[in-house]
Each structure stands twice: as C-alpha cells, then as structure tokens.
C-alpha cells in the first residue's frame, strides 16, 4: 500500500525478511549482530538525509550535527547514574532536536544550493568544535554513557537494551517505521507541496504556498529523526564522540544516499548496506582499501545515472 513502486515493493519484501532472519544464523557471533545494528542505525540517518536532499531539494553538509546531538543531548539531559525511561527520552531528544532545527533552519533556509551546503557545514563545524573543545563533555576523547535507559512502557518491558539481539530487532523495527513514516509523509498532501517546492519554488510561491514554512517543517522532521538515529548509536556502545558530528560523517551519509539513489528513500538502505559491505570487504582484503573503495565509487557514479535504486527500477520495469 505504501510501497507503490514495484521496485520498492520488491526491495522491502526481500530486505526486511532477510534482515529479520539473518541474526538467527549469526547468533553465536555478537560482532555481526552489532555490525548489522550499526548499519541499520546509520541507514536511518542516511534516510533522513535522503528525504531532505532528494525529496526537498535541501542539500546539507551539516546533518551530522543532529546525529551527534542525538547522543550528546541524552548525556546532557539524563542523570548520569540513574536509569531513565527510554521512550520518554526518545521523545525529549526528538523534540529538542526539532526545536534546535527550527532555530538553525530559520537561519539556514534563507540560502539555497551551494550556499546552503556551506552554511549548514559552518554551523555543524561550530557545534563540532564546541563539543570537541569542551571540558565537561569529554572533549575530543568523547564520553561514556554509564547507565542505559530502561525500556519499560506502562510497566511492561519488551526488550533489553543490553542484549545485542533485542537491540538489533528494535533498530530494525525503527528502520522499518522510518521508511513507512517517510513514505507516508511523501505521499501526503504535505508531501505533494514539498515535492512542488523542490521542483519549482517560484511557481509554488505564486500558487500561494509559504515555501519557507514547508522547508522548515521538513528540516525539523529530518533533523529529529537524525537525532533519533544518533541517540540509538550512542546507546549501542554507550559511547559518544564529537567525530559523530564531523563533516566526514555528513559526507559519508551523502555518498551512501547518492549511491543508493537520491530521493528514493529505500535507496538509503541500499546505499548504506552496499557502502558498508564494500568497506568491510575491502578493509579485510587489503591495507589500501581506500583505493578499491574510491575506484568503486567512481565506477558506480559513471555507470549508474540514478544510483542503485535507479538500476533496480530499470530491471523491474523491464521485466514488466
């Protein structure tokens, strides 16, 4: 129902069952589960960027700021040695991140194109240096989260954050929810106008829509979900570090998103999995994995016009 395009449908029906079953074969191996978890978490982050860049036409190189903030906000607002409620703090973190995005967005959305890329980068770098130079937040070395939150809901606890398998399934569910959420948003009346804003802002203004407001709302939503992904990342190992906010993190996410097929949403998952998979393989193959990785990226960009999702789309369309 949500996944109208055929290729998308295929992908969802292949990827999620596979991801559900995969850990059963890897159960003895904590590493794979952890690795998959971090890929799934990062895919959520990439997806929020994919929405912003591919569906709203707002290219940002500062999205990692919200990813990092997700982790740091938890450290800032939660007491150090007391388990807090996971759901409550998820809510807090998303709301605070959205509020920060509101303020940042008012500044950033005055510009567009390359200027927007740069101003988002500037703000993210300021944030990066704030945490990197800070004494109370562990500076460059980062900080540990000593007490993981408690996940009970109305007194019932469904899963345990310390169990990697539980955490993996929870993250996978979150990823699925994110995909559905973004599909709903893009399929809504709001999504229709957002698409129009992206394609032709001048025309959309002339039709009587407040373009700025549409952009701002999208920016806040994407930032909140990026913060959510960052929050999950921080919880996975109980560790936050300013490098989460570095521009390289944004850059990597952007590469994954373009690789997957900008704006296709499910391409974000595809891009993240393929990128991380290649990275992992090459890294174990040779010390000079950067050479293989770089060549692979160049080859893919030369050959695929709209990312991996575009290739799959073509395949599926042709079979029809």
């Amino acid at each position, binding site marked *: 129902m949500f996944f109208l395009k055929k290729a998308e449908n295929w992908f969802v029906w292949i990827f999620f069952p596979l991801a559900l079953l995969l850990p059963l074969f890897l159960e003895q*191996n*904590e*590493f*794979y589960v*952890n*690795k998959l978890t*971090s890929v799934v978490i990062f895919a959520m982050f990439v997806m929020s960027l994919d929405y912003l860049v591919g569906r709203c036409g707002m290219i940002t190189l500062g999205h990692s700021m919200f990813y990092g903030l997700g982790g740091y906000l938890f450290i800032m607002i939660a007491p150090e040695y007391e388990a807090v409620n996971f759901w409550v703090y998820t809510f807090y973190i998303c709301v605070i991140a959205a509020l920060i995005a509101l303020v940042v967005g008012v500044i950033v959305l005055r510009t567009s194109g390359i200027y927007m890329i740069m101003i988002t980068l500037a703000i993210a770098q300021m944030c990066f*240096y704030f945490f*990197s*130079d800070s004494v109370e937040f*562990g*500076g*460059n*070395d*980062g900080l*540990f989260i000593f007490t993981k939150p408690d996940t009970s809901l109305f007194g019932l606890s469904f899963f345990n954050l310390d169990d990697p398998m539980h955490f993996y399934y929870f993250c996978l569910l979150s990823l699925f929810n994110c995909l559905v959420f973004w599909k709903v948003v893009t399929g809504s009346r709001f999504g229709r106008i957002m698409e129009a804003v992206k394609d032709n802002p001048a025309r959309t203004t002339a039709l009587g829509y407040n373009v700025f407001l549409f952009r701002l709302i999208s920016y806040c939503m994407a930032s909140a979900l990026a913060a959510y992904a960052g929050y999950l990342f921080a919880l*996975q*190992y*109980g*560790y936050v*570090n300013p*490098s*989460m906010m570095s521009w390289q*993190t944004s850059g990597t996410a952007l590469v994954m998103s373009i690789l997957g097929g900008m704006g296709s949403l499910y391409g974000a998952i595809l891009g993240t*999995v*393929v990128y*991380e*998979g*290649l990275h*992992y*393989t090459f*890294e*174990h193959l040779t*010390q000079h*994995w*950067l050479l293989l990785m770089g060549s*692979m990226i160049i*080859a*893919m960009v030369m*050959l*695929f016009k709209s990312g*991996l999702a575009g*290739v799959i789309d073509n395949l599926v369309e042709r079979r029809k």
Partner: protein
Amino acid sequence: MKKHTSLLTLASALIVSLAGWSAPTAAADKPIKVGVMLPFSGVYAALGDAGRNGMKLALEQHADKLHGRNIEFIEMDTEARPDRAPEIATSLMSQKKADFIIGPVHSGVAMGMLKVLRNKKPVVIIPNAGANAATGPWCAPNVFRTSFSAWQPSYPMGKAALDKGYKKVVTMSWNYGFGKESLAAFEESFKAGGGKVLKKIMVPFPKTEFQSYITDIASLKPDAVFVFFAGGGAVKFVKDYNAMGLSGKIPLLGSGFLTEGTLTAQGDAAEGVITGLHYADGLDNPANHAFRADYEKAFGKPADLYAVQGYDTGLLIAMAVDQLKGNISDQGKLIQTMESLTIPSPRGDFTFSRAHNPIQTIYLRTVENGENRVIGVAAEALEDPARGCKMK
C-alpha cells in the same frame, strides 16, 4: 552494451558486499590470535605501521619461546576514528576471538575501545595511546600499556626547566585530551618548584597555522617555551618556530614526541630543541643496539619510538606465553604473569605499575646533528600516579 557493463558492475558490487557479510568465521583453536587495531590510513598511519612492525619483529625473534604455538595476526584499520573504535573492538573480541588485542595510537580511539573491552576476555595491550585515564580511572586488570601515560614524559620537564633557570614559560599544545594532559603534567611540577606560566596557548586540532601564536610568544618574551605536538604538527611547529627567528633566543622544550620520527622533515630547524621521553634513538645499551640493527635489516628503515613500543608489546606477549608454557587459557594467571614481568626493552628494563603502566626512566634529550642525543636522566623509574585507579 552499456547496460550490460552497468549491470555487471552492480552485480559485482552486490556480490562483493554480500561476500563480505558472509565471510566464514572458522575458529581454529591452535594459534594465538593477536588482534591489531592501529591506524593504517590517515594522519597517524606512520605510527600504526611502525608499531605493527616492531611487534612482529619481537614475535618473530622469540618464535622459539612460544612453545609451538603460532601467532595469527588480525589487522584492522581504525582510521583514527573514535566512532569506529567500539565496532572494531567488538569485532576482534567476539568475531575473531582474539586472545590479545593490540591498539590503538589515538587516545580517543582508546576510550571507545576500552568501553567495550574492559574486564572482558582478551588482554588489551596499548602500544601508544597515552590518555592518563587508560591507566587511571579507566584502569582494568586486562588492560596493559607498554608506552607511557601523557603525564610521564611531561612531568619531569617542569623540574628540568627550573634546573636550567627558566622561571617564566609559555606552554602550548593542540586542544585535545593528550595535549591538555601533557601541559597539565608539566605545570604540576613546574609550578610546584616556583615557576610561572605566562600563557597557555591551546591550538584547535588539527590546525597547523602556528605563525600568529609564535608571534604572540615573541611578544610575551618568556624564558622558555614548553610544547606538545606530534607528527606533522610537530614538523610544522618546529619549522615555523625557527623561521620566525625564535630558536636560539627562546629555548624550546617539549614532550619528546616533538622530535620523534620528525627529525628528517624538520631538518636544521630542530637543532637544540630539548625534550623528555622514555626513549632516544641513540640510547647506549646492548638491547637498543641489537634492536635497531635488526629492525633496520628487517624493514629497511631506522626504528623509532613507536617501533620500540610495538617491539615491547611483542616481547610482553612472547615472555608471558613462554612463562605459561604456551597455555594462556586462564586469564587470571596470564594477567598475574604479565604483571610480574620485567621487560628487557631497548629503552632499558621496565616493570608494570599497579595500574599496568610502565615504570620507566625518562631521558632528557637534545637534538644535535639531526639526532636525539641523551644529555641526562630527567627522572629515574618514574611511576605514573594513576589517579583514580581503584585497582590494587
């Protein structure tokens, strides 16, 4: 045609990435597994390389003492990225079932790694990262360090500066953990002896535009300058300091990393710089001479500090395995054995403190003709105070 090539590329990309995920995890029990997590790309790559080489040299030299057990190395590139550290550490621990995990270079990576590995099965040996916390508040029975704490090379320099009659100094370093800890250790002894720090300059990491800071130092006219920089930053700083005409007028002191592995690149600019460190290339003892000759023969380039630390890491493993006759399955015994060892390092023998940090001599060195020459001992058998460590 074009469609075909693109399809092929896609297919190969998918297959390669899938193959990566499903790599078999065959676990042979026989060899001793040594997981190495060092930076092999990026700014710290040279350090990671030297450390690995040193360790391999030691284990090859002592292969006969391993009681028939082979060593299997599993090397992982940390890229000096702290956010990847927990992932790689888990990989080595749970996926590869490493007995020893060696790493890292970067203190931030060390923190992320310790988060995962403290009080776990593998024995961690840190061959470089000097964050005080690793053998301070974050000390653990299974964590050893063969290098130094940030405190160690800098603390004696405060006294050394006073001995030379410097009363007013400017201190300077990159604004990150290790730099801050180095300056704090220097100040600790320097202020205790009545010295005065005119200004503490923290340069944003990894900025290397030092000219304005050096001009600032010139305007303050201190008796001496104490700095912490390493690698490329150290090269740039020493060159700038010389170029701005300050060397020879305001003496430059430093934590030893200022002139380690950087002297060729620094050239004449480094002449006369005084540093404190637990090692010097020209250290006159048989172990060092033998080590340097072997290293140069094996890898075709001169050994440096990072190679020594790697070498000692290898020694530590080899000696512990030897004493236990090849059976390292009992972690408690292994740790006990390691604690009791005296390592015959090229830097001179050292033992471990209660927090598993080396108790070692810090040498005072100066650069002469492009070499670090030892001019004295800054502190004999110096033990890190291990503040915050609850281990007995």
